[in-house]
């Protein structure tokens, strides 16, 4: 029992949070401006996603719907993520870890979701989904041109 008490007493105690560490990265007028920019980015980002959803109604075939997904993943959600990061600066201290996380998220949204859309579009064509007859060129389904 005494050993346990000694062990607990020997554990490092977390120090008090220093004021610098708890202070937000931006304060005063700069924080107001950044918050306003973040609010605009967040709202317009959500509107982009809604526009993408409406566009899916207006187009006729699955291939065009894959295209209509672009504004949501390419513009809308990156804007929302950037807005969240800007708002984070007015609440928490600046940290490079957060910058890396935001960069990875943006990269994933732009690159990984593009690859996913490509795979899905290919699957839509291969599954024989209806397509706009004006879709051209269509190398996946067309016969290769005969060599002359």
């Amino acid at each position, binding site marked *: 029992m005494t050993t346990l008490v000694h062990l607990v007493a020997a554990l490092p105690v977390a120090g008090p949070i220093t004021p610098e560490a708890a202070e937000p990265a931006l304060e005063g007028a700069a924080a107001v401006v950044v918050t306003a920019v973040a609010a605009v980015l967040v709202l317009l980002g959500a509107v982009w996603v809604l526009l993408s959803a409406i566009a899916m109604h207006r187009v006729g075939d*699955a291939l065009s719907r894959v295209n209509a997904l672009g504004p949501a993943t390419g513009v*809308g959600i990156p804007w929302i993520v950037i*807005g969240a990061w800007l708002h984070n600066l007015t609440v928490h201290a600046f940290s490079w870890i957060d910058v890396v996380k935001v960069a990875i998220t943006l990269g994933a949204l732009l690159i990984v979701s593009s690859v996913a859309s490509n795979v899905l579009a290919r*699957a839509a064509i291969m599954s024989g989904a209806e397509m706009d007859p004006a879709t051209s060129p269509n190398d996946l389904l067309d016969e290769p041109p005969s060599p002359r």
Partner: protein
Amino acid sequence: MTVVVWLAIGVLGAAVVTSLWQIRSASDAASAAVVGDLIFFSGVAMLVLVSIERESAAVVDAVMLASLLGVLATVALARIITRGRR
């Protein structure tokens, strides 16, 4: 900022409802898969907005993982549509 966040969540909710309606009237499986993808990304965006409201660091990690691994769901749906053909 709270008002803006809830307004944005409302807009995203409208997008989700529109998409669900679209899935209900979808003519082929590929369209339903694409619209499902949009619903997934709307959910990710709502997570970001929740992280603004709660000022939580864990949600940021969740958003990063969701955007990195969301491709798996899309590729799985693509394989289902083509019955395993590449």
